[in-house]
């Protein structure tokens, strides 16, 4: 059985490597990627159903490091089993969906391999019983996120977004590394259980835990490290789903959950976490309401939802354990993946990820319509969907925490949670109304894609004034930030069967830039591709409805308090009604009531990007100073030495060019003097 645990990590890792190094053809890459995802899901299922309950599964032997013990063990318990399974399942749906989504992308094999590696990183983190392995998985995810967000690297915006994501998380990783080292030093061991049980040295412990909080703030997108996440929407939609649903941003809360018994006894670290989470959840939910781009809206909602998970870990009483936070992680994984995949589908139909062009398109298909509806409802927390249960468990846990005497940090969280519930319901309603109530397009205009060629600034839309940011690149190149350009349905050969009833051949002048690869096996069958896409969305929708059942296996993850449930349902209903009214029953975008400058600022992320860019410029300026010092100050010493030597040599040369007979006088006089000395002194 221990091999199952190892294989859960090994299979996607090998699939990733194989895809990267070997698979050059698309069918092979598809088989490897999807096959490995299926195998991983099955293995994770086995592990979840029959967890070993042990934390000393060898990986490749302990490191011989003298005074530091680094056994590098994996663990297998209920929590890792559940999360592992959810991760594997979400990755499976995403891999299946990617086959459809990137069907015309020449670099699909690399992309699929990247997703596999990413999954391996997350699964390693989930199953790690060793802080070093946690860090390994953590960093692998960071790297893969860079590769995947920048997949579409012909566009400057995508390159910049990838760089920004990687750098922001990497900077936060400074704290992560220091924190993990501190915790390991305390126990002289990187073994999770040794770290958790080491008593004493609370000063060091607090420092380490706070460092870890700041470390996870990077990947989980807490303020002030949050701004990379909306920009990361430049990546293809499957990556967004991957990052947002079950892996990267959720990894932070999982790490905190694994260290929960340390956090439970440490007020200082938890207060920091609570404050960061509370700020982030309200801030991000408020910004989400004003977004004009569906993917960015979802990104901000992710920030907010991840903060909810973390707030549960920050505020819940120790007795509640990690259940509330992890429950919300699982629920969020399902409905956020669902929303992203559905959103990607919509974007392909509409040719843009901006909300305005999508208006009405959600009615294009049954699965799409119901999928998006379930997704938004679950996100808003409408009973009986999974979001309702998990969110109310968190609120209940926070209330219990407040009652338990947690004081400030619990109350901050409770207030923020109720505000977030309200805001979440508002932006979900707004988005749904926009998507569902637009003018029903019978089909997409033949040249529709042409209009939205440059997504992010569609004609006539005030909402897409996504401000151009300055690229944070050492080269100082100024690039405009935009949003992902979804693969367009313009290929005459491959109309979407669900979308187009009577297929007019699209104008051929707008063929996709990437040539259709010469793969025509059964995998290429259009209907099969569409089926894969639809099945993925449907599976996730099912998960969003039935996810509560999964959570029953994790103690403490479903615990609905009546008071909080009633209050939040009322809040949701009120917010939805208010938005409905403001939106004139769906006749206009509810966000249009906001003043234009506020809207623009919100779309621009309130200038966080500018601050990042300024920081980047400061670093580059320092670097230039360093290079100047290196070349012209430090290096002056060797140059001065060389020049001195040369000057001395010249002087010597001149001396030797003196009149020869004078030299002779010198020599003879010297000999005489020496001889006199010799004769006199010798005696």
């Amino acid at each position, binding site marked *: 059985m221990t091999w199952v645990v190892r294989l859960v990590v090994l299979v996607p890792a090998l699939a990733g490597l194989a895809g990267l190094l070997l698979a050059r053809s698309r069918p092979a890459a598809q088989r490897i990627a999807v096959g490995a995802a299926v195998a991983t899901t099955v293995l994770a299922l086995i592990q979840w159903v029959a967890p070993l309950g042990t934390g000393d599964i060898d990986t490749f032997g302990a490191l011989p490091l003298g005074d530091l013990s680094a056994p590098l063990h994996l663990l297998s318990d209920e929590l890792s089993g559940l999360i592992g399974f959810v991760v594997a399942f979400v990755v499976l749906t995403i891999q299946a969906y990617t086959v459809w989504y990137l069907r015309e992308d020449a670099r699909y094999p690399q992309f699929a391999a990247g997703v596999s590696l990413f999954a391996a990183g997350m699964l390693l983190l989930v199953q790690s019983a060793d802080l070093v392995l946690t860090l390994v998985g953590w960093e692998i995810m960071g790297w893969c996120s860079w590769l995947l967000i920048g997949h579409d690297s012909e566009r400057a915006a995508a390159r910049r977004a990838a760089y920004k994501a990687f750098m922001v998380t990497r900077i936060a990783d400074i704290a992560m590394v220091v924190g993990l080292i501190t915790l390991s030093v305390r126990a002289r061991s990187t073994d999770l259980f040794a770290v958790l049980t080491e008593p004493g040295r609370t000063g060091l412990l607090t420092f380490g835990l706070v460092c870890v909080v700041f470390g996870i703030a990077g990947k989980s997108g807490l303020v002030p490290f949050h701004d990379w996440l909306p920009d990361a929407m430049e990546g293809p939609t499957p990556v967004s789903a991957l990052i947002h649903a079950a892996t990267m941003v959720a990894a932070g809360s999982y790490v905190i959950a694994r260290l929960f018994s340390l956090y439970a006894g440490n007020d200082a670290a938890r207060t920091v976490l609570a404050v960061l989470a509370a700020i982030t959840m309200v801030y991000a939910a408020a910004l989400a309401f004003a977004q004009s781009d569906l993917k960015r809206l979802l990104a901000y909602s992710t920030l907010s939802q991840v903060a909810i998970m973390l707030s549960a870990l920050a505020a819940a009483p120790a007795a509640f354990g990690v259940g509330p936070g992890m429950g919300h992680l699982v629920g969020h994984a399902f409905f956020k993946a669902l929303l992203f995949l559905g959103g990607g589908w919509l974007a392909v139909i509409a040719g843009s990820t901006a909300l305005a062009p999508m208006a009405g398109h959600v009615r294009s298909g049954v699965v799409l319509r119901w999928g998006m509806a379930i997704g938004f409802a679950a996100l808003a927390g409408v009973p009986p969907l999974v979001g309702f249960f998990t969110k109310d468990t968190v609120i209940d846990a926070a209330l219990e925490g407040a009652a338990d005497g947690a004081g400030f940090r619990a109350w901050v969280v409770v207030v923020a949670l109720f505000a977030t519930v309200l805001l979440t319901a508002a932006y979900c309603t707004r988005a749904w109304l926009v998507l569902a109530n637009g003018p029903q397009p019978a089909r997409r205009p033949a040249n529709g894609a042409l209009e939205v060629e440059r997504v992010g600034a569609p004609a006539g839309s005030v909402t897409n004034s996504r401000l151009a940011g300055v690229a944070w690149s050492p080269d100082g190149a100024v690039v405009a930030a935009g949003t992902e350009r979804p693969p367009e349905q313009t290929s005459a050969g491959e109309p979407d069967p669900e979308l187009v009833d009577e297929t007019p051949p699209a104008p051929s002048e707008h063929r996709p830039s990437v040539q259709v690869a010469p793969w025509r096996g059964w995998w290429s069958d259009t209907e099969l591709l569409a089926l894969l896409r639809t099945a993925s969305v449907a599976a996730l929708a099912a998960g969003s409805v039935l996810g509560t059942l999964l959570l029953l296996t994790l103690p403490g993850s479903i615990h609905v308090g009546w008071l909080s449930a009633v209050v939040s349902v009322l809040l949701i209903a009120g917010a939805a009604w208010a938005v409905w009214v403001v939106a004139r029953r769906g006749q206009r975008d509810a966000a249009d009531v906001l003043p234009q400058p506020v809207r623009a600022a919100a779309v621009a992320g309130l200038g966080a990007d500018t601050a990042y860019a300024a920081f980047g410029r400061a670093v580059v300026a320092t670097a230039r100073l360093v290079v100047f010092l290196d070349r012209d100050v430090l290096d002056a010493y060797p140059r001065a030495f060389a020049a001195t030597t040369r000057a001395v040599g010249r002087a010597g040369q001149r001396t030797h060019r003196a009149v020869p*007979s004078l030299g002779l*006088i010198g020599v*003879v*006089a010297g000999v*005489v003097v020496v*001889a*006199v000395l010799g*004769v006199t002194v010798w005696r």
Partner: protein
Amino acid sequence: MTTRDIVFVVVGVITALSGLLAVSTRHVVHAALWLLVCLGSLAGCYIVLGQELVGIVQLLVYVGAIVVLVLFALMLTRAPIGPQPDIDAPVWQRVVAALLGAATTALVAAATLPVIGQQSVDLDTPVVTTQQIASAIFGTWVWPFELLSVLLLVALVGAFAVSRVVLARRSRS
């Protein structure tokens, strides 16, 4: 003062005087000729000292070869005949030279005379015969002797190289 002493002093005075003239005459060629006299009379000194072989070699090599070489060199460097006003260095340099020369003399004398003291040797029955010298050269000193022959060869080649190769390189560039 024995007879040999008197003979030696006479020959020695000739040597010293001709040496003085060799370094002080204003005729370039005369200098070489006075050197010839000086070295020749030094050969006489050697003979008085009982070293006939050395004296003869001195005559052959120094007087016969080296001085001739010097004369050749003087001719090749277009040495003028007749007294030269600028043959000597400036006065101050000559004064320094005289001082250093005197110092050298004093030094050598001071260093060696006490060693020699009032020692006198009987040269009528010579300590070393020519035969002994021959067997010493080809016996005890054979390796230095052979090395010397190599040195001579190297010197010949070197002289040739210095005068030929350097000039050839110069003319090429």
